């Protein structure tokens, strides 16, 4: 492994926000997650839980509930609006005011024709779903008190609504409330407090399952309106419920951070009389579980501790496989850090501002492992607040440090920076076509800006001393409507590669401004792409951890890539559960490829033999203890360093020093809101 001077950066105060709501689409296997700042994330469960899309939030628009309708995604929030999202252009398509005050819940019938929302003013409003929009149809009978939770009966004729102190069952046809189920309040001091029915599930055999603020999960008979069974789950609140598609299992999330599973099992007496029995308890969260989804094989939970946890159910998956491993997704699967290689600047992207830092300097020399004295401390040069209500969707700083660009869904801004004097001037005359971008990238000589926009097209903008000029729009022939999520330009400025969420990778020739080739489509989504500076090979890493190298000149996979595919990657490499988010190359040694994920960074030496399945993958420590002569025998291509933890970014600077941006999860955890107080034995 090569030696590097490392800038260990810990001043990026990245703080993810809490997960508010979740919806799982069983058909497409996509999970939509709504966060407290209004951002929406789409995870592809068929492709290693890869975070395919992120729709940036907006001030005042935080989704309280989410709902899939086929391929369409709807959200509703406390601002009283229903929003449909444009998942191809990563923006809200339209919003419809419900005129019922804040909306607490949203639910669609199983036929996919109607949408019901529960409002603060006590009405359940039914919206008709049309081809390109939704239209208000009618109100159900107005109730006293807010409608907190809603669920349609699978037949589409009944709606159960959770309220304060009670559950109401509505006839969806007539709009009348047919049953009123009174929910018991908590005991003791909370007797005087109204109980809130936070979540409700209506099953096809007319069983209603409710979770409330008194910590109960209750099973009701919806036909007679009687209570069947009460399970006291927690001393705090049961905040979320979700049922499996076959209705044999229901999970409940609590304020304690536990997820409790209930299953519909036959008791010992006879096979006929089945009961809802509490079976399993998972504790994977330190804070409140606010959102749950029950997939066919796993329980997905999220809440105030900002992590998404996928917990496979061991009776549904094969044991001791990769499928049965628990996943925790703490960081976004895209980079929030941009590095100006030549100027030694770092740009940190927050939802509402950007921070530009200059790295520190050190002139000391030490042996490997030493921390060098800092001659000049890192300093924050600029904090740039965004304009408007929309949050920042992407940002970039040019390698020379002279340009800074960011985009929201509604606007695009370009700034000229003077670093010696620290001045920012906005470039006022922008090309008309450059209204918003999904990804941004500067060429390595900082003379061109690439911005991806709708239908996988890429705008090329020429940057002069002080102004910019539109040059060309690069369009792929395939006509894919999916957004571009990766953009990379070669060091010599000849090639531009784009990857979109349809798993398509296009390479454009920038001299001719034409499509050069399309890389053969692989089934998994690319998570990082890069073009080698000297031999113009495109290196692609996919969500299933596969690595490919594609020669742009010969338009075929390289010899090394074929060898790697034939040999297969090491099983430990395949078991890693975070995607590679960035690829870089070492100009000193062209055979080195530098990759990183959240837990490690790796240097792949293409000259060394590939590891066998039986050889240890993480062998840096043992290599160090061996004498020089024996090292060569044991070393293999993958050199992995786990010294730096919870990586957000690893970049190689022009002066061959490595920048490592860490964000320890403990630091994030320490800034979270208050957890519940639990008594632990002997403390």
């Amino acid at each position, binding site marked *: 492994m090569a030696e590097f001077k490392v800038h260990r950066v810990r001043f990026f105060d990245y703080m993810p926000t809490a997960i508010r709501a979740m919806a799982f689409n069983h058909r497409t296997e996509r999970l939509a997650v709504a966060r407290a700042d209004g951002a929406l994330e789409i995870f592809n469960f068929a492709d290693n839980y890869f975070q395919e899309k992120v729709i940036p939030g907006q001030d005042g628009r935080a989704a309280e509930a989410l709902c899939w309708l086929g391929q369409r995604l709807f959200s509703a929030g406390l601002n009283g609006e229903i929003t449909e999202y444009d998942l191809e252009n990563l923006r809200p398509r339209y919003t419809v005011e419900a005129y019922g005050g804040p909306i607490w819940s949203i639910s669609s019938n199983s036929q996919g024709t109607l949408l019901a929302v529960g409002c*603060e003013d006590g009405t359940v409003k039914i919206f008709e779903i049309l081809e390109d929009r939704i239209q208000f149809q009618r109100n159900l009978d107005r109730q006293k008190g807010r409608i907190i939770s809603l669920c349609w009966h699978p037949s589409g004729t009944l709606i159960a609504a959770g309220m304060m102190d009670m559950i109401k069952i509505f006839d969806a046809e007539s709009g009348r409330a047919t049953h009123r189920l009174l929910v018991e309040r908590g005991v003791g001091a909370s007797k005087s407090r109204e109980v809130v029915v936070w979540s409700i599930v209506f099953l096809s055999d007319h069983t209603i399952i409710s979770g409330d603020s008194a910590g109960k999960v209750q099973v009701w008979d919806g036909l007679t309106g009687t209570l069947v069974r009460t399970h006291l789950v927690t001393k705090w609140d049961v905040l979320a419920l979700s049922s499996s598609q076959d209705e044999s299992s229901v999970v409940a999330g609590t304020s304690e951070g536990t997820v409790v599973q209930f299953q519909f099992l036959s008791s010992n007496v006879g096979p006929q009389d089945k009961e809802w029995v509490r079976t399993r308890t998972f504790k994977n969260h330190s804070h409140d579980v606010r959102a749950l989804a029950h997939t066919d094989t796993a329980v997905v939970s999220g809440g105030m501790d900002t992590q998404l946890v996928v917990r496979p159910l061991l009776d549904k998956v094969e044991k001791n496989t990769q499928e049965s491993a628990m996943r925790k997704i703490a960081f976004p699967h895209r980079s929030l850090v941009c590095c100006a290689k030549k100027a030694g600047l770092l740009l940190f992207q927050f939802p509402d501002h950007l921070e530009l830092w200059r790295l520190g300097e050190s002139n000391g020399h030490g042996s490997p492992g030493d921390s060098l004295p800092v001659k000049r401390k890192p300093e924050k040069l600029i904090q740039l607040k965004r304009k408007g209500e929309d949050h920042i969707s992407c940002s970039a700083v040019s390698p020379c440090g002279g340009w800074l660009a960011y985009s929201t869904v509604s606007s695009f801004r370009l700034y000229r920076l003077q670093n010696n004097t620290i001045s920012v001037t906005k470039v006022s005359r922008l090309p008309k076509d450059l209204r918003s971008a999904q990804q941004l990238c500067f060429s390595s000589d900082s003379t061109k800006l690439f911005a991806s926009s709708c239908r996988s097209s890429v705008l090329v903008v020429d940057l002069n001393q002080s102004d910019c000029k539109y040059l060309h729009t690069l369009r792929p022939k395939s006509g894919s409507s999916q957004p571009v999520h990766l953009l990379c330009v070669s060091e010599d400025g000849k090639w531009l590669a784009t990857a979109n969420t349809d798993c398509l990778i296009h390479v454009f020739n920038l001299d001719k401004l034409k499509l050069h080739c399309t890389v053969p489509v692989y089934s998994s989504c690319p998570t990082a792409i890069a073009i080698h500076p000297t031999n113009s090979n495109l290196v692609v890493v996919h969500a299933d951890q596969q690595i490919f190298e594609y020669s742009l000149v010969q338009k075929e996979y390289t010899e090394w890539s074929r060898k790697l595919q034939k040999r297969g990657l090491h099983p430990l490499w395949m078991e890693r559960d975070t995607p590679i988010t960035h690829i870089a190359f070492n100009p000193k040694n062209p055979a080195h490829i530098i990759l990183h994920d959240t837990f490690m960074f790796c240097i792949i030496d293409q000259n060394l033999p590939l590891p066998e399945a039986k050889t240890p993958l993480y062998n840096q420590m043992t290599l160090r203890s061996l004498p020089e002569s024996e090292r060569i025998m044991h070393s293999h291509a993958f050199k992995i360093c786990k010294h730096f933890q919870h990586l957000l970014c690893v970049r190689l600077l022009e002066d061959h020093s490595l920048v490592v941006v860490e964000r320890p999860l403990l630091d994030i955890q320490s800034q979270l809101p208050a957890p519940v107080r639990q008594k632990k034995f002997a403390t």
Partner: protein
Amino acid sequence: MVKKQRGETSSSLKMEKVSDNFNLMLESSDDEAPEEVTFEDSKAQALKSMKLALDTARRDKALLKEKRKKRQELFQEQKKRKLLPAAVLEEIASKKQKPSEDEAEDEQQEEGGEETKKTKKKSGKLANARNLKGKYTVQTVKHGASEASQRQTAEDFLQSRLYGAGSCRTTSNELLSLENKKGRNKSAAVTFVNKDWACREKAKAEKLKKRWIHKQQIPC
């Protein structure tokens, strides 16, 4: 005047007497007969109280009147402040004499159609405001006051339910420290383990420590 004053004093004296009598009455035990109050006395007293009531009513009215007057004045002043200076007003008045031309212009603008609309938008007007005929503008109120307050109550409800009184919450520090305490490798609370944490508390602790050492040294 003198007479009047005298009268007043006498009446006040009388009052005192009456109250004295009353006191006496209260103090006197049950077996004593009630003291006689002449008809004249009681009549005078009644008249006086009536007069007093009338006086207060009149005074209140006068006060109210004054208050209204003051407010009116304030309003007028405010209006004046809002108004443009006299010269400008005059100018406007003189211009108003040719209203027909203005109207014609307006019509022309409307005929102009979309182009003029575009120019209007470009001139920096709000997107949700719209010019009608004349000087009236109609504007949709995006965030109504009631809407905002409703939202606030909803958020407050959520906050009070999850974090309000009786929710039994602790701090992240305590939670993480508990893990340190219970884990295999026991260590101090996170605030002390992590160097970046709670700088202020640490500074305070340092100060207190110095003070304590100082105190220990003095008696020696």
